[in-house]
Every structure is written in C-alpha cells, then in structure tokens.
C-alpha cells in the first residue's frame, strides 16, 4: 500500500515538475529573479557559478544539455555572455530559445543601459558599445526586469499570468521597501574605486562616486605606471577599493596599501539557487563595504 502511495506521489510529482516551465539562467542573479517571479511554475537551471567571471566562462557540454531541454533562457545580456552563450545555444539545437524568440530573455534588453558608446573600438579594451551590461546590482532595474520577465512567463504560460505579475509586483514592493535603508547606508559616501566597471549600476543608483577603475581599460590589467598614477591622484583622499572575488590582480593590494585604503573582494552574484533575501543581502554587502571609506 505504501509503495502504491509512493508510486502515485512520484508520478504526480513528475507530472507537476514537467508542467513547470524549464528555464536556464546564465547566472545566479538571473536564476534568483526567475524563481522569484515564476515561483513554483518554473524549474531553473543556473549555468555559471557565482564566483566566476561571466566574460570568460567557457562552454561545457552540460550547458548544451540544459539548453537542449529549455523553454526559456534568461541571460544578463548586452554581450556579457558573448564568449560562450551564443555557441552554447547554437550547440543545443533548440530552436525555441534562439534570440528574438519567446524563449530568449536578456535582462539588459529590458531596461535603459548606462555608458552606451556610439563609437567604440578595441583600443579602449573589451568595451561594450551597447552600454554597461552588469545590470544585476541595480535593484530598481532588477524590479523592472522582474516585471518584463513576468510578462514573458505569462506569454509562455498564460493561465498563471496573474501569479507572475503579482510576484513581480511583490519583488518591486520589497525593493522599494528596502530602498530607504539602502540609501541610508550609501549616504554621503566619499567614493569607491572598482577594479572593473562591474558595479557601476549600484554606484549610480545610490549616488556613490566612482573614483576610478584599477584596470586602465576594460579587460586590460593595470601596469605599474598606471597604479603609480592612481596613487598620485588619490593620495591623501578617502576611498575604498571594491573588486569581485575573481579579480586577484596584485596591483589592487599594492594600490590599497599605498593609499592606506581598504580593499575588499565581493561576489557579483548571490549564491547558486538562492532566493530574494540572498540578493538583498548581496546589495547590503556591497553598500556596507562601500561605506568603509570613511
């Protein structure tokens, strides 16, 4: 009898789980957002570990396998995943998730981007002429992306439209409830130096000045003379160097010690398979770190 019940439960569970929309998210922030909006009606696979540089990730066969079965890809976009997502989608032989179909969703395509450049060439490093793609640290943009994502999920699964919309609104409300607290954390900040322009959306959102980037050009490591010029420029001023966990350039520590500043390594993404709280904690972690420059 127990076995029969188990079998029934299992088959029900598998029927329910196949009913969920199969979503592949490139990063854990996109996974978090998809789960927050989709709730129990989505099954999310995340492709990148949160401590990896999304620029330089490489295709793995398991990515192709996940994409082969996917109904929706949720990417950060604006060519951030350019080195691996297009060949992974092509290699998955899945027509449902090609760009410009309902199965393809770029967060960066849903919101206005900062730092777009009309004219760009590679003498400026690995620039993104479309704009800075790292939108995930702006909670307000993320709330807007959540609403766009709710509409997309509604198109793929019309019966649950109201649930998706309500979940997106709940996320937006939660963000708006947090904003005063976050703004308080960020108030009167003297400024932050980043290694790469990957937290600019956060800084712009909370009016924290970006003092400089340690790398002279996007994707190009600093030379000793660039470090020296930064030391001369910021000697005697207040600041803090924030960089991501994968940016381990020796110039960071050297610069920090010469300026007498702190330098801190922070993740750009919440933990894998995490929920809204983990994302809010990430924002709080960045803002708290930024506030250590007093």
């Amino acid at each position, binding site marked *: 009898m127990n076995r029969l019940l188990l079998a029934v439960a299992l088959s029900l569970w598998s029927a329910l789980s196949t009913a969920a929309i199969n979503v592949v998210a490139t990063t854990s922030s996109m996974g978090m957002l998809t789960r927050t909006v989709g709730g129990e009606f989505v099954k999310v696979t995340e492709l990148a*570990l949160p401590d990896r540089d999304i620029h*330089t990730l490489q295709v793995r066969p398991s990515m192709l396998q996940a994409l082969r079965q996917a109904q929706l890809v949720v990417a950060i976009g604006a060519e951030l995943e350019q080195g691996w997502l297009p060949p992974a989608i092509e290699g998955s032989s899945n027509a449902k998730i090609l*760009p410009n179909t309902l199965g393809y969703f770029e967060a960066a395509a849903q919101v206005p981007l900062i730092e777009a450049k009309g004219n760009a060439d590679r003498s400026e490093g690995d620039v993104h002429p479309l704009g800075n793609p790292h939108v995930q640290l702006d909670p307000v943009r993320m709330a807007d992306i959540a609403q*766009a994502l709710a509409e997309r999920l509604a198109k793929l699964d019309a019966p649950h439209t109201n649930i998706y*919309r*309500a979940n997106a609104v709940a996320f937006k409300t939660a963000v*708006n409830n947090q904003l005063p607290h976050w703004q308080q954390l960020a108030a009167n900040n003297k400024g932050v130096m980043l290694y790469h322009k990957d937290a600019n959306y956060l800084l712009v959102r909370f009016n924290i000045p970006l003092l400089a980037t340690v790398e002279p050009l996007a994707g190009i490591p600093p030379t000793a003379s660039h470090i020296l010029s930064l030391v001369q420029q910021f000697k005697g001023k207040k600041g803090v160097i924030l960089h991501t966990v994968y940016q381990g350039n020796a110039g960071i520590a050297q610069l920090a010690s010469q300026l007498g500043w702190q330098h801190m390594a922070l993740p750009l993404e919440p933990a894998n398979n995490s929920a809204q709280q983990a994302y809010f904690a990430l924002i709080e972690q960045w803002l708290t770190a930024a506030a250590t420059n007093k």
Partner: protein
Amino acid sequence: MLYYNQTRRFSSATGTLIIMYKLTAFVLGLFSSHIVWAESTQALSTGNRFNPQMSLILDGNFYHDNQKAKGSETLDNMAGMGHGVGFAEEEAGLQNGFNLGESEIVMSAIVDPSFDGLLIMTVGSDGGVALEESWLQTRLLPNGLKVKMGKFLSGMGYQNSQHKHAWDFADQNLAYLGLLGGEGFKDTGIQLTWIAPTPFYALFGVEALQGNDQERFGTRINNADAESIIATTQPLADAKAGPRIRTLFTKFAPDIGDSQALQLGLSYAQAQQYQQLLDSDGTPLNGDEVALDGKQTLYGLDWVYKWDSAGEFGQGDIKITGEYLRMKKNMTVSTTGTSAGLMVGDTVTGSQDGYYLQASYGIAPRWLIASRYDVNGATNELNLAGVKTDLKQSSRIGVSLAFSPSEFSRLRLQLAQSSIYDDAGIKTPLKQVFLQYTHSLGAHGAHKF
C-alpha cells in the same frame, strides 16, 4: 520610480509619477493587471543589422628548425601506409625566419528564419586564396536535430572541428598530420546531428561527404596526374559517384558539476573510394610504380577533460585532451609499372594509427602553458600481396607558452623535439621553435567546447 524615464515601457503610463516608493508599489499592485510591460526578446548585439558579422584572424611566426628549414618537408614525408605520391597543392613549407601564416576572413549571418550561414576564406602569404569552409545550418529543426550542408570541418574526433586559431599549439599534431593531413578532415557534403533528450549530454552525428577535398583520407587521384608518375594510360578507375565518404560520430558528457567537464567521443569514417600511387624509389616513370584502388576506414576515440578554476583570465584552468585514430586500407593493384614487384589484382592492405595527449594549465592570468606528446604510426604496417612491411613510428614532444594581452590577441613560444622517420626507415631528428602571434579582429570570438 523616478530613476529614469520609464514612460515608453508602459502602455498606460499615466498616474505612475508618484514620488513615494510605498505608495507607488501600492498603486502598481492595484493596477498591475492594467500595466503591461513591453518585454523584449532581443539579444542586444553590436553585430551589423543585416550585413554578415565579420572577423579577421591574422597569424604569423618566427620559425627555426635544425634541418635547414626542411621541417615541413620531413613531416610531410613521415612514414605511413596512408600516403603515397602526393598531388595536393604544395603548401609553402615554413622557412627559417619570418613566416606569414594564413590570414583568415570569417563571415557569418542569419540567412532567414530557417538558416545560418558561414564562410571562411584564407589568404596565404603568396596571395593565394583558399575556401576553408562555406556552409548553411538549420535553425528551426525540432527535437535536438540540426543539419549542416556545404563545406565544413567534419564532426569526427575532437580537435578536427576546432579552428586552427583555437589550438593550443602552432601546428597540427602528428596523429592528424599522418592520417588526415595538416588541414584535418573537411569536405563538402551534409551533416545531421541529434542531441538526445537524456540527463547527460549525448550527441549523435552522421555525415555524407563528397570525398573531393582530402589530403590523406579517401583521396582520389585523377588520371592526368597519375600518368605523370606511372607510364600507362588510365592507370586508375574513374571516380565513383559521390558521396564517397560517410562518417558516424557520437559524444557523451556526464554532468560533473559547474567547474569541470568531461567528454568522450567515438568516430567512424569510411571512404568508398581511395586511390594511391606508390613509387618506392621516388623517381617517376621508371617502372617500379604501382597504382592502387580501394577503400579506407577510420576509427577514432577522443576524450577531453576541463577544469574551470575561479581564477581570472584562465588562471588555474586545466585542459587535458587525448585522441587515438586508427586507419585501415583495403586496396587492389589496378596498374603496375614494368618492373614493379606486384601484379594487377594483387591485394594491398595496411593499418596505421596515431595518437596525441596534450595538457594545458593557466599558470597566471592570461598565461597558458601546454605540453603535447604526439605519435604517428605506433601501428604502421603495409601488406603487399602477403608480404608484410613494418613502417617506423614517428613521435614528438612539445611545449608551448602563450600570453594573451587581451581576448583578441595571443603571443606564443613553442618548442618541439621529434624523431621523424620516412618510409625507408631513415630517422630525422627534428627540433623546431615557433614564436607565433595570432590576433583576431572584429566580432567577439566565441568558442565551442
């Protein structure tokens, strides 16, 4: 709400300009069913709207070997039952000193909803243009199916479908060089692949290829060329109708987590028609030449392991690749010269294998060290009408150190030491040094697994 102008995103934007966050959220909650976001399916891309995406790959080197720049020739004549007198277009060998590699032009675009297209041409240092690849690929087939047609790199093996500029070494490994030729296995035809809906990655592929473009495997020789070597008219059978080469390949990759990957591949290829001219003394038209007609089969086993570390720009990344290829031929003597030891109708068979094992490690951000051991002809036997001859095994060991100032450029130093034997069993100790640059311009590169 007033962080940026959102009005274009709302179908009913009125009433949203409320300053207090909580009130805004409340209002949004009340009217959420009336606010429809115009979500976008677009992939933000710097690619030109309708023009093909283009990239150029520029390559050159400073090269030196200890054989007075006869290194390329030595390697071309490496002992193997799988090569005869060659008629392939003579590629200029590497000179001691500066060499310009092939300059590659890659163009690709979405043709229409159903097809992608790609073209790769190379321009040699002498200005000669060659068509490397030109294919169309389906976009919309269901159930994990994909069809590619045109001229393309065969999906057999692992390294075969990797483009040259993505190799960890400046030159072709000895296994491929001896069995498939320096350019690898590419031809004109059609490919069907299927990814199974399994919990692990499983790809199955089948190809039908014309058999016109082969350097080593499934080569045909036209009679005009053959007559310049062997003193008979029409020494070889006419071309059979194509496609003359068929391949089958499969790849499996268990999911072993997000920071590592393992893939195993099996391949099989059959050439319905294979022609060879043997000229043991190397002097044409003096009677010892033999023309052979027959078939060839190729088996391959490949495995790749990758470790993706959390280090930046490849630091700590590991990649280990190995491939084993084995080729068999089954031929009949169709014509002989006056003094050849073989008779028309005699059977000539042979088998030859090759393998390589290579590993790379990111010693620092942007710095990659790689080593390779490659072998041609561990089995290398020829059976001429019941008389067995063993040809020698050639092997090489090499190391390379590459530095990539950016994702678009790479400088590489490569050292190799090899023992290359020719068909007569004479050994050439070959030492080679490459100092190579490979730069890509244009569209951001993306590499498959």
